[in-house]
């Protein structure tokens, strides 16, 4: 296990293998590929948030000179309701098809209706104006209140709420209702000395990846078609696109470009199927790029949410019951992570009585997509705010209350299993001992503490390590690198092989160079793909030993592998990796190792954040003045990139808490679809985010790794929210804590 093991490479802060190309501008992103004969695709988008399409006539556009092809929903071969694996969950292929190109109804402002490919962008844009669409405009349903009303206009006439014992009589915008429970909350609340019950609201937010969606594709009727795009999972792009176009998987090759951020938002398809149709119909390669406006209006944000949270505790600090009712916006099609909200909300607590009711609700906004720990930040925001308030009412330090009730190995979760070894207690203790927590607040400053829980996933990863005749090797993995994972793969392979880092080059193979890999999501890559790398490297070592044995004429078990060399334990002799590879020709051909895993036992990563803010009492502006992110990494393979994940999660969570939100007008048109008015935090808005890496090994990984990519976005919402409330002496219940909202709280308190 990791403590016993002495590492040569793991834990160092090495230089990332992709860094040089990225900082010198040589790395190729989604929009960087152009092909001979390539034409340009552009999308006609709905000017209404909710309308029936009465007529769609593309004939005038098709007739325009320079227009090469047109795509509408009718070009999608009959898609059914089958589920396809996409990103971090299965999605309904009919819904996916209807999101990619609207069928009979447009369901949000910006919903794609038709696409044109033309010789130039200008021609394509001009031709869009020649598409004739007649709409019957319907009343848009723009928030959870409106959508859940009994007489609300319906987005889907055929949608009946799932999750009740019997199908309800009338259709509804509530796609699903779920219950999660354990123990007896009534009895738990009856035992409590103090009960906190509050409502919370969080806004629609976007992942804010800097690189917009783009792709270049080429359809080939005879042989193989190709998609080049920026994605977190090119195998899932292949699955979704092939499904929508009724192609066998083997006929489609998807190449993942470098990716300029995804955060969960690049786990589904928008442009790729459309571009392939346009290419199929024109016989030309097609390139499509969204602009920022389209990214905001038509790609998937994270759910806006409303929740009621009730928690009860005894004077001695025992939390006796925790309960919540949660509603999440799914956007235009079902499938918000509402239930995940219920599963995560109270998991940091060892409380026997828990009840969660969750609602997945459709509204006339873009279909939500995954965003870092999808579903957890909203629910845990409410839970953590309520727990902090409970601590205050009980007169107990908020870290102590959390320590007293902390989930640990053996704690029963509301969603089923008992937790294995986890590091929440260690994170809370680290918080308590941190210089930050020991810093006394000055007049006018506030402090918030919050925990965060995320499951993490494992799943399928495949890796091949191909050794070269000079003893160097290529690590072919299938996990797009969005957070520096290539560096970690290189370190893990070097650790096993004992050869220098730079002798191993990690690359992201396309869908035909390597077997299926699940997408880079769920914080799975360093854990699961890392396991496949270790397995592949061990396979290579095994073969190197065999080859050395045959050269020495001994048995493989008489050969030991040490620091990159084979040692003959039966006699004299030592051979380096390079020497063995150079003689491969004589010992049976070239060497490659494989690791194909379906990794189980992803260890959850708990996080604890401490945030201090200062509020301008006359303007309501919040300054984050101190921030510390503490999280369990199991084992930090590359500490700098682990810290980067903590800081990135914190920065995004702070943005969510402070200023980010979709602003809609009454017609359902987003009014701030750009980075000028959709206010993500800038570097100058944030203090240094201090980090503390906690390492409680995950026994299911050879080095003890836990994924760290997501938990860090969970605590900031409540850490910031509670801190602001503490600074101004009022209760924060709605995010973001934008200046007008905070000023209002200050004024109301008088």
């Amino acid at each position: 296990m990791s403590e016993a093991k002495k590492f040569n490479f793991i834990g160092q802060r090495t230089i990332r293998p992709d860094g040089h190309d990225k900082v010198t501008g040589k790395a190729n992103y989604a929009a960087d590929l152009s092909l001979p004969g390539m034409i340009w695709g552009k999308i006609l988008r709905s000017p209404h948030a909710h309308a029936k399409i009465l007529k769609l006539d593309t004939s005038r556009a098709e007739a325009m000179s320079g227009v090469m092809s047109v795509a509408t929903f009718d070009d999608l071969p009959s898609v059914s309701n089958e589920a396809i694996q996409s990103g971090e969950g299965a999605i309904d292929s009919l819904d996916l098809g209807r999101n990619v190109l609207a069928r009979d109804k447009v369901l949000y402002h910006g919903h794609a209706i038709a696409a044109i490919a033309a010789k130039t962008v200008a021609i394509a844009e001009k031709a869009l104006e020649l598409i004739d669409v007649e709409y019957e405009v319907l009343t848009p349903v723009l928030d959870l209140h409106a959508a859940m009303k009994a007489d609300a206009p319906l987005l889907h006439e055929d949608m009946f709420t799932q999750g009740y014992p019997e199908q309800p009589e009338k259709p509804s915008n509530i796609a699903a209702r779920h219950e999660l429970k354990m123990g007896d909350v009534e009895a738990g609340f009856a035992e409590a000395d103090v009960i906190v019950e509050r409502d919370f609201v969080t806004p629609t937010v976007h992942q804010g990846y800097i690189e917009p969606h783009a792709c270049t594709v080429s359809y080939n009727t005879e042989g193989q078609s190709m998609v080049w795009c920026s994605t977190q999972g090119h195998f899932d792009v292949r699955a979704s696109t092939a499904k929508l176009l009724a192609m066998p998987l083997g006929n489609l090759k998807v190449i993942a470009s470098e990716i300029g951020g995804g955060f969960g938002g690049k786990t589904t398809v928008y442009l790729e199927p459309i571009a392939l149709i346009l290419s199929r119909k024109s016989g030309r390669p097609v390139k499509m790029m969204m602009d920022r406006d389209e990214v905001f209006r038509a790609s998937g944000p994270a759910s806006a949410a409303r929740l009621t949270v009730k928690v009860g505790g005894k004077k001695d600090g025992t939390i006796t019951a925790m309960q919540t009712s949660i509603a999440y916006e799914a956007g235009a099609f079902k499938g918000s992570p509402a239930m995940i909200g219920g599963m995560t909300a109270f998991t940091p607590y060892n409380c026997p009585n828990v009840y969660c009711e969750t609602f997945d609700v459709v509204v006339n906004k873009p279909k939500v997509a995954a965003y870092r720990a999808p579903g957890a930040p909203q629910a845990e925001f409410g839970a953590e705010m309520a727990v902090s308030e409970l601590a205050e009412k009980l007169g107990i330090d908020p870290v102590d209350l959390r320590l007293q009730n902390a989930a640990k190995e053996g704690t029963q979760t509301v969603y089923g299993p008992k937790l294995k070894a986890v590091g929440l207690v260690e994170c809370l203790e680290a918080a308590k001992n941190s210089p930050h927590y020991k810093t006394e607040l000055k007049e006018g400053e506030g402090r918030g503490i919050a925990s965060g829980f995320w499951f993490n996933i494992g799943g399928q990863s495949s890796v091949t390590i191909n050794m070269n005749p000079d003893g160097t090797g290529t690590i072919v993995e299938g996990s797009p690198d969005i957070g520096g994972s290539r560096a970690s793969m290189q370190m893990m392979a070097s650790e096993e092989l004992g050869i220098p880092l730079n002798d191993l080059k990690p690359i992201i193979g396309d869908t035909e160079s390597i077997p299926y890999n699940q997408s880079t999501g769920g914080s799975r890559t360093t854990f699961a793909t890392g396991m496949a790398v270790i397995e592949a490297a061990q396979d290579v070592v095994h073969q190197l030993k065999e080859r050395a044995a045959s050269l020495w004429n001994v048995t493989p078990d008489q050969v030991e592998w040490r620091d990159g060399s084979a040692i003959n334990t039966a006699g004299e002799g030592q051979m380096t990796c390079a020497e063995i590879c150079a003689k491969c020709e004589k010992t049976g051909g070239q060497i490659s190792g494989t690791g194909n895993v379906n990794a189980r036992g992803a260890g959850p990563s708990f996080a604890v954040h401490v945030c201090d803010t200062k509020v301008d009492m006359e303007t309501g502006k919040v300054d984050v003045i101190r921030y510390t992110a503490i999280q369990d990494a199991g084992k930090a393979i590359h500490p700098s990139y682990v810290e980067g994940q903590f800081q990135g999660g914190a920065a995004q969570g702070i943005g969510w808490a402070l200023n980010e939100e979709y602003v809609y007008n009454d017609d359902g048109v987003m009014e701030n679809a750009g980075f000028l008015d959709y206010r993500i935090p800038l570097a100058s808005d944030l203090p240094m985010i201090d980090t503390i890496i906690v390492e409680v090994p995950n026994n299911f990984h050879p080095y003890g790794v836990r994924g760290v990519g997501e938990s860090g976005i969970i605590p900031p919402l409540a850490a910031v929210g509670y801190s602001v409330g503490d600074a101004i002496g009022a209760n924060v219940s709605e995010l973001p804590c934008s200046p007008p909202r905070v000023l209002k709280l200050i004024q109301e308190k008088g």
Partner: protein
Amino acid sequence: MAVVDYQAPQSIEDAIGILQKTDIKSKVMAGGTDLIIQTKSQTADPVRVVDLKHIDGMMSYTLDDGGMSLGPAMSCAEFTTLDDVKAVYPGLSESAYLIGSTQVQGRASIGGNLCNASPAADTIPALIANGAQCVIEGNNGERVVAVEDFVTGVAQNCMASDELLKRISMPRPAPGTSDAYLRFIPRTEMDIAVAGAGVSVTLDSSGKCTAARVAIGAVAVTALLVREAAEALIGTAVDEQALDAAAAAASAAAKPITDRRGTAEYRTHVVGVLVKRAAKIAAERARGVK
């Protein structure tokens, strides 16, 4: 717009000559940080860009006992390094320093900020507070218009299509005068003012305010000169009571809209806070420049 022609005249006369052509629309350009973005708008109307940066005097300034005469196309990056200007008009220098980012300031000019006439333009309240005048040149010669009268609406100014802004002139402030400009944005940079306030005050040797100008931005279709706010300061020692009265007068004068950047209610409140704070800073500075 589609840019189909680019001209870089060497003199004002040549520039005006080009502006008089009626074949296609001409657009004057200083740094282009507003103009180039506008040319990317959907419409395909052909335009000619007339770059002013090669005309003598457009990029330079003079500062003497009579005041400042500023070439309207000088970059904010250069303007904000002028220590002599900063000593006399610190608030104006600060307003230019708030525009965009270092990169944007390398191109953006005060003249462009003024002519573009955005309600949220940062330098306009600071110019008004300093009593700046626009020297306009056209076919019929020169005319001079006060900045508060120059801007006539959202993205509108009083110039004809064949006129251009030649100089921005400002009187030398009386002894004991200084200024300040503050804006409110929810972040620290790269944002557009939710409200802005430029204030100039003159204090006599006893610390009493003898003259003041207060201008507010982003709370009406144009920046407003608020005489009531100035009057609230004049005759006082710029104490808390006077500052509160000035703030109230500014809030009362504001006619903001609610949009994605802020509600009308919020802007009305915050502009008062900014006036109060800017007046306080201007007074502190004025006490130092006897």
